[in-house]
């Protein structure tokens, strides 16, 4: 059995700001050795783990979870040795002044994000990204020597920690917790005669590379796993979907997802007694679930999301029970519904 905490910790420790997903290659290779027959890295940077079917006509199933995380890129080095950055993916500047980061150059460099101190600001407003700098404690010359240049990736530097009731807090759970889920589901599907691909897709936060992987694998069905905002008091009754924590995955009902597949996922969850909640996503799920259905001749797709608090911060929180529920629902749905 997979140890959720330890795999999640290892995946999130590797920094994979969109575009540098190959940083986690070591862990991906280990996963491949344990559970899969083949690892493909396609031209768009997606990693596709494949476990071959026994029979030739077996159904082809794709489980998608994205590998990238939000972060920054260095956009300038000032004469005083401070770094300017731009964000990669949506980041709330309210969490940045100050916060701890790692600059990925020839070596990893510690830094603290800073801007004009609050007591010198006339307006009490959150800073904008162009008003922020990274303080590395080095001079410009030092930084040059360490290979810090425009375009270097910058990531949040916060480790995973455990809260009460099996909740985990860390960075990059969006969407590495779903990679853990997908691998768990693959383990549960051991012995099931399907051509199974788990796609660790790239660049979800900034665009959609998943279509390339989906095109090449050409599955009969796709299951997209992502995260969703968990309910907190001030997020209730907004237009954005949010779901309670520890009550199972959120199943997305959306005009762009395959209705028959979604309906049968819901009824499968009901009869197998796996808790879930529903989200009405209209015509936009905000995930790879938007793009995969229309790839090639069309791929019937469902989307499940794990409730997560503080999304896109270095303190994302998930409940381990939701990971287990989601993995069980994914595996069971594939085995007992999709390939039946």
């Amino acid at each position, binding site marked *: 059995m997979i140890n959720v905490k330890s795999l999640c910790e290892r995946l999130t420790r590797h920094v994979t700001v969109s575009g540098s997903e190959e940083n986690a290659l070591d862990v991906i290779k280990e996963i491949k050795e344990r559970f899969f027959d083949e690892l493909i890295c396609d031209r768009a940077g997606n990693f596709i783990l494949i476990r071959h079917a026994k029979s030739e006509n077996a159904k082809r199933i794709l489980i998608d979870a994205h590998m990238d995380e939000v972060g920054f890129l260095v956009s300038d080095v*000032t004469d*005083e040795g*401070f770094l300017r950055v731009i964000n990669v993916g*949506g*980041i*709330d500047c*309210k*969490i940045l*002044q*100050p*916060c*701890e980061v790692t600059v990925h150059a020839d070596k990893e*460099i*510690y*830094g*603290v994000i*800073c*801007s*004009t*101190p*609050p*007591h*010198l600001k006339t307006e*009490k407003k*959150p*800073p904008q990204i162009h*008003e922020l*700098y990274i*303080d*590395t*404690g*080095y*001079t410009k010359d*030092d930084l040059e020597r360490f290979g810090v240049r425009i375009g270097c990736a910058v990531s949040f530097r*916060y480790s995973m*920690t*455990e*809260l*009460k*009731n*099996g909740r985990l*807090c860390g960075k990059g759970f969006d969407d590495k917790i779903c990679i853990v889920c997908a691998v768990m589901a693959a383990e549960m599907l051991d012995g099931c005669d399907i051509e199974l691909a788990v796609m660790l897709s790239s660049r979800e936060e900034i665009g959609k590379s998943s279509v390339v992987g989906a095109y090449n694998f050409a599955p009969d069905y796709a299951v997209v796993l992502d995260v969703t*905002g968990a*309910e*907190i*008091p*001030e*997020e209730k009754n907004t237009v*954005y979907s*949010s779901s309670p924590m*520890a009550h199972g995955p959120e199943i997305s009902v959306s005009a762009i997802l395959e209705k028959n597949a979604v309906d049968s996922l819901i009824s499968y969850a009901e009869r197998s007694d796996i808790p879930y909640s529903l989200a009405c996503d209209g015509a936009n799920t*905000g995930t790879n679930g938007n793009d995969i259905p229309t790839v090639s001749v069309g791929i019937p797709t469902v989307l499940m999301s794990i409730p997560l*608090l*503080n*999304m*896109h*911060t*270095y*303190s994302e*929180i998930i409940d381990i029970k939701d990971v287990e529920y989601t993995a069980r629902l994914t595996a069971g749905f594939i085995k007992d519904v999709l390939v039946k």
Partner: protein
Amino acid sequence: MDSKQLLEKLCCAFGPSGCESEVVQIIKEQVGAYADEMITDALGNLIIKINGKTDKRVMICAHTDEVGFMIRTADDEGCLYFHTVGGIDLGALCARRVTFLGKNGEKIKGVIDSKAIHCQSAKERGEYIPLENMHVNIGADGKQQALECLPVGSYGTFDSEFIEFGNGFIKAKALDDRAGCCVMCEVIKRIRENGITPENTLYFAFTVREEVGRSGAVTASERIKPDFALILECTAVADVPDVPPHKQVSHLSKGVSLSLMDHSTVYRKQVVQAMMDLAAKNGLKYQIKTLVSGGNDAGGIHKASGGVRCATLSIPSRYIHTACCVINMDDYYSAVDFAYAVALNDI
């Protein structure tokens, strides 16, 4: 234990204003044995006396407390709402990791929740969340469990590692003013290790509650009735990009900073001059704090026990009152040298 190790131990200790005993205990273990007399007063101040050749009393002080949090209530979802203890900017709170002291003395980890950027309206993106709406998440399942773990009144601090980085920089929580406490410990050790009996009788006061009104410093000076007091502090500087030079209070790596005036005190001209003369005579590295900002224990001490001549030396610090205070070790060492010289000379 070298300077950095002791500084790390002090910064990582839990000690928001009114809850400083963990910090005081470390200091007692470090330097208690060097004291000719040691007092812990009613408020929790620790005073270490070193006898001098004369009865002239010099007080050297630094505060043991740090800014932090206090639980005020919880809601049905188990979100814990809090007051800040001491001044913390709203921008330093969202998504930060925190540690609270449970009712059985255990440390409980938590996070100050932060609404996902996708779910914020344009208006919400442009403003800070008001303090009364912020809440700590410890993973509790409902109100009852939340308050069982952390009853109303439970104390918290930022959760932040001690890190060395760049060219001699340190990042930690609570450097304001554990750095000052650490300087005092080193001065006490240096006096004893050098076998020196100072001219003046020295009272090293590790004060409480500086961040919430300086009551500790006032009661300590009422007891000591010093002829002169040296306050060791951390001061916020602004030596970062986009701040014009005339608004930068002091600079990191340019030595400890001597105050002329701040929001709580105007230092007597003769005292400031005597400090400068002492520095010149002993070749001490220092800079002048060039902008009136902040306040410190001197604000209470100079008015206590019939009036006390005061001087303040501050270690320049970036991002003060946050989880990531930053100082430079060179400035720290220059503070130790300067404080040591003050301890052994008349001001």
